[in-house]
């Protein structure tokens, strides 16, 4: 199957500092690729190049087989769902207006937007008649994140970009949201690029895991094979899952 997103020898430089170097990576249809790495490893930078929030210093990025540098950036962005921490919701707009934003930009009819918003609120587990008219300040962290995901899905984009979407949530809500997201992305058959520094989240949600270290791609592995990886950085991340068990034995 053709790759939906393709990074070809991508680099990103700020001044004389290399943030990313020589990245080659493809994301196939219907898979979730997790970009895993420490803070400062360049994972968010890589994600932001897909919808042209950042432009690569060298190399190229392809979306649906075409160079994104040749595509209209506004139309490109409307075809790519984007989810960040706390959802980045508009505080002055209702839940329904937030979710209906991209469809409205795309010129959908009011009635079609209303139907779509209700459908999506249902899909993310929020009752439309309760939540549609609320403002973001009236929502809990988990609810905001659900609305953020609904908003990203609104115009039915072929690709979702998620930048540590659940990092600000408490552990229980985060776990619920992770499970919910796994179900959703299966149900909607979405392709996703998901940034996290949480190895558990990566193993749970990823089809494949791309491990970044100091701006280089250290390893790309299927999620079920990742625990067998032997690279230094992979072992460092895997240790965070097993470490607590070891210290319990020591005690």
């Amino acid at each position, binding site marked *: 199957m053709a790759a939906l997103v393709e990074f070809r020898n991508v680099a990103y430089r700020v001044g004389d500092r290399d943030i990313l170097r020589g990245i080659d990576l493809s994301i196939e249809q219907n898979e979730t690729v997790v970009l895993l790495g420490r803070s400062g490893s360049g994972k968010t930078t890589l994600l932001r190049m897909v919808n042209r929030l950042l432009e690569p210093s060298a190399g190229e990025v392809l979306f649906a087989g075409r160079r994104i540098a040749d595509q209209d950036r506004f139309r490109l962005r409307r075809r790519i769902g984007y989810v*960040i921490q706390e959802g*980045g919701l508009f505080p002055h707009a209702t839940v329904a207006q937030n979710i209906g934003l991209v469809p409205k*930009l795309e010129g959908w009819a009011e009635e079609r937007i209303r139907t779509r918003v209700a459908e999506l609120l249902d899909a993310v587990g929020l009752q439309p008649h309760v939540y549609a008219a609320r403002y973001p300040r009236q929502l809990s962290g988990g609810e905001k994140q659900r609305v953020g995901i609904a908003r990203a899905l609104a115009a039915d984009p072929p690709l979702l970009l998620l930048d540590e979407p659940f990092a600000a949530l408490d552990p229980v809500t985060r776990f619920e949201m992770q499970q919910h997201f796994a179900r959703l992305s299966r149900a909607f058959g979405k392709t996703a690029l998901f940034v996290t520094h949480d190895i558990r989240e990566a193993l749970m949600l990823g089809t494949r895991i791309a491990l970044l270290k100091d701006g280089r791609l250290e390893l790309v592995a299927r999620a079920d094979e990742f625990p067998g990886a032997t690279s230094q950085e992979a072992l460092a991340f895997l240790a965070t899952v097993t470490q607590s068990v070891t210290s319990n034995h020591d005690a």
Partner: protein
Amino acid sequence: MLFNEIVRLSAEHLWLVAIAVVAATAIAAPSAVFLTRHARARRWTLGAVNIVQTIPSLALFGFLLPLPFIGGVGKQTAVLALILYALLPILRNTVVGITGVDSMVRESAVAMGMTDGQILRDVELPLALPTILAGVRIATVTTIGTATIAAAIGGGGLGTFVFRGIAMADTKMILAGAVPAAIMAITADEVLEWVERRFSY
């Protein structure tokens, strides 16, 4: 007799203030939007407007008097000085209101494919509106006070009483100008604060 004159000069005073604040808003708000898009111009302009603000008002009226066309004794000079004073709070609050929009909100607006114009109209201005209105309120209240001094260069308004009272060492006459000006300032503050709250989200 005195009462009739208080009403007439109050109306004149209010008119001076209204023209100055409306003109200052019309100049400052669009300029501020431009400045939010150009960081370097922002520093220079805010600095320059800050300096105007530090000139004592009586001195500024004095500076404007000898200028050709716009200067001279009369209302137009007074209004010009009042506009210059009203610019800063509106300019600064508009810049602060727009640049203060949560960076996550702006980022998600960009990422969803909104154009710069759409972001300005549908995200930044609505979110900045309470701050902008606060600037207009501050400008209005201070202009009501400053406008009393406009009488010194023939601007008219309630300052006429104040200066006449000072010349005649007549406290009652001074109060006939000062009290209505104070009431006007307090009322404007209350009304505009109510408007501000209505536009908060």
